């Protein structure tokens, strides 16, 4: 009936429905998109480069500079020079060698502790958030109890009883460290659980475990990764203050913590002793944060340009 009002001069052009739905943007898989967005972020790429460099130093450095405990009483507290690039300490040990060795110790503590926390926290928080109800309340109260005891007291207590080795430090950091991530994941899952795509999967017959694994956890990855990258320097920092108090890794072993301690003992006489580990420490912290930020943007498809 609408045809009657058409003026004869007009001809109707048939509409190609399929063509009108064409999307011009290049089609990317999920991981291609992530890499592409990450590459566009300069700060994140520089940070990634720095992190990779630090990691490589931690892995291979001690092979080339093995004598981190060798003392040389004739050359104590030497300023940076040709012989010792970063100078020597009060017992004539080469600071660069000790820094390289300390990087290995500190990164092992940072990565291992936070990876353990990541696994425990994600599983615990994911289960609490997904089950909900009484199980959730119970599991969260357990966390509240753990959190109510100051982390530092637990760590100091543990390290006073046991000797300050890497193993003890890891145990002390992981005993309470996973709670923050568990809370985060639980909150995320709780919010996502009400999402219609989780419901749709349930209606399609997916088991609870499958819904959690394929729909809920992948969508919490952004905040988890940001938390992970930001807590690695946190763990390294915890090692630093414990070593500073004489509870962590003690000399002659090397870690960023006891290097800083030594440096501050000699402050302000031999500044290089303090500033070399401090600068490396600060740059590492910054790099992890910037990279985590860039990664979060890249992992979220809606943030892509």
């Amino acid at each position: 009936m609408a045809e009657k009002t058409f003026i004869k001069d007009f001809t109707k052009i048939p509409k190609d429905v399929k063509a009108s739905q064409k999307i011009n943007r290049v089609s990317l898989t999920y991981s291609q998109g992530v890499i592409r967005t990450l590459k566009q972020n300069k700060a994140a790429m520089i940070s990634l480069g720095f992190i990779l460099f630090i990691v490589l130093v931690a892995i291979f450095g001690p092979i080339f500079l093995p004598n981190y405990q060798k003392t040389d009483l004739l050359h104590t507290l030497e300023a940076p020079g040709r012989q010792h690039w970063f100078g020597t300490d009060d017992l004539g040990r080469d600071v660069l060698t000790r820094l390289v060795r300390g990087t290995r110790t500190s990164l092992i503590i940072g990565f291992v502790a936070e990876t353990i926390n990541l696994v425990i926290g994600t599983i615990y928080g994911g289960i609490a958030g997904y089950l909900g109800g009484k199980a959730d309340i119970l599991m969260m109260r357990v966390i509240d109890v753990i959190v109510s005891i100051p982390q530092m007291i637990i760590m100091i207590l543990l390290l006073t009883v046991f000797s300050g080795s890497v193993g003890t430090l890891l145990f002390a950091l992981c005993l309470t460290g996973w709670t923050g991530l568990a809370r985060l994941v639980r909150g995320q899952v709780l919010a996502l659980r009400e999402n219609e795509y989780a419901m749709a999967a349930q209606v399609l017959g997916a088991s609870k475990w499958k819904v959690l694994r394929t729909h809920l956890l992948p969508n919490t990855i952004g905040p988890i990764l940001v938390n992970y990258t930001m807590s690695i320097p946190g763990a390294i920092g915890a090692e630093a203050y414990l070593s500073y108090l004489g509870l962590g890794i003690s000399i002659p072993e090397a870690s960023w913590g006891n290097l800083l301690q030594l440096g501050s003992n000699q402050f302000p006489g031999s500044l290089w002793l303090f500033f070399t580990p401090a600068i490396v420490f600060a740059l590492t912290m910054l790099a992890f944060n910037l990279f985590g930020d860039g990664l979060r943007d890249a992992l979220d498809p809606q943030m892509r340009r």
Partner: protein
Amino acid sequence: MKNEEVLFDIQHLNKSFKVDNGELKAVDDVTFQIIKGETFGLVGESGCGKSTLGRLLVRLYKPNGGDIFYKGESVVDLNRKKAKAYTKQVQMIFQQPYASLNPRMTIGEIIKEGMKIHHLGSAKEMDDRMYELLDMVGLNPEHARRFPYEFSGGQRQRTGIARALAVNPEFIVCDEPISALDVSIQAQIINLLKRLQTELNLTYLFIAHDLSMVRYISDRVGVMYLGSLVEVAEPEELYLNPLHPYTQALISAVPKPDPVEENERSQIVLEGDVPSPINTPKGCKFAGRCKYATDRCRQESPSLRKISDNHMIACHRVEELNHFE
């Protein structure tokens, strides 16, 4: 309906949620049947329990009382195996096209999800079926590799429809599938649903609050008020001859396309607001706002009863009132 095979038999279904200050009765003693091949429209204001009812049917929620029979078998308590088999027959289309697709999965993966869960064929067969479904709902094959955020609302909703169809269901709960879309797209989706229904012999429970849309698509319409089903009838009967005072008010609020009729339309304005569904008093739910309410209405809750062949109503005074008019 010529060949009346009851697909769903819902008996005295109850669902309440515990809230801080009492009990929220979302679905209260609802009894009705859905016949194979029909579209049962469910209308009511927001918060009246229509979505909860839909979710009860797909077993997202567990009822507090009553029973749901699918093809004569109760589906309230199912073991894991039977529950999974049930999901192959009963599917759902969701309200929010933006929230109902996982942003990390491609359209193809989303459509194949159900097939993977139920192991419907090899990878190649699933791909073929996925492309067939894309075509069926009017999407291009190249869309399979795209992510939901690259699509419009209508396209996303069609993806949701394809996902539900992937497991070859017999029954689909359409939970306000068009309310989040704009009007031109609404018609597209409705026509798609209608076409699929005839092609695939589907049965729908169509939940909506758009009365004219429900009239267009439904074979029978149920009106819900505060968790109770107050009237069930065929759409023409319901729209031309509403019997329940609430339905009368609801229908009178639908604008007429003809301007002359629209001018003459007199809208029944109900007094007050919809009361809170938390700790509702006994008696007819509508009694507080009904101008015909008597003491009996306030004491005794009316149940849904047949008053003519295709008309059911839950009102104590329906006979006497319709004598007067």
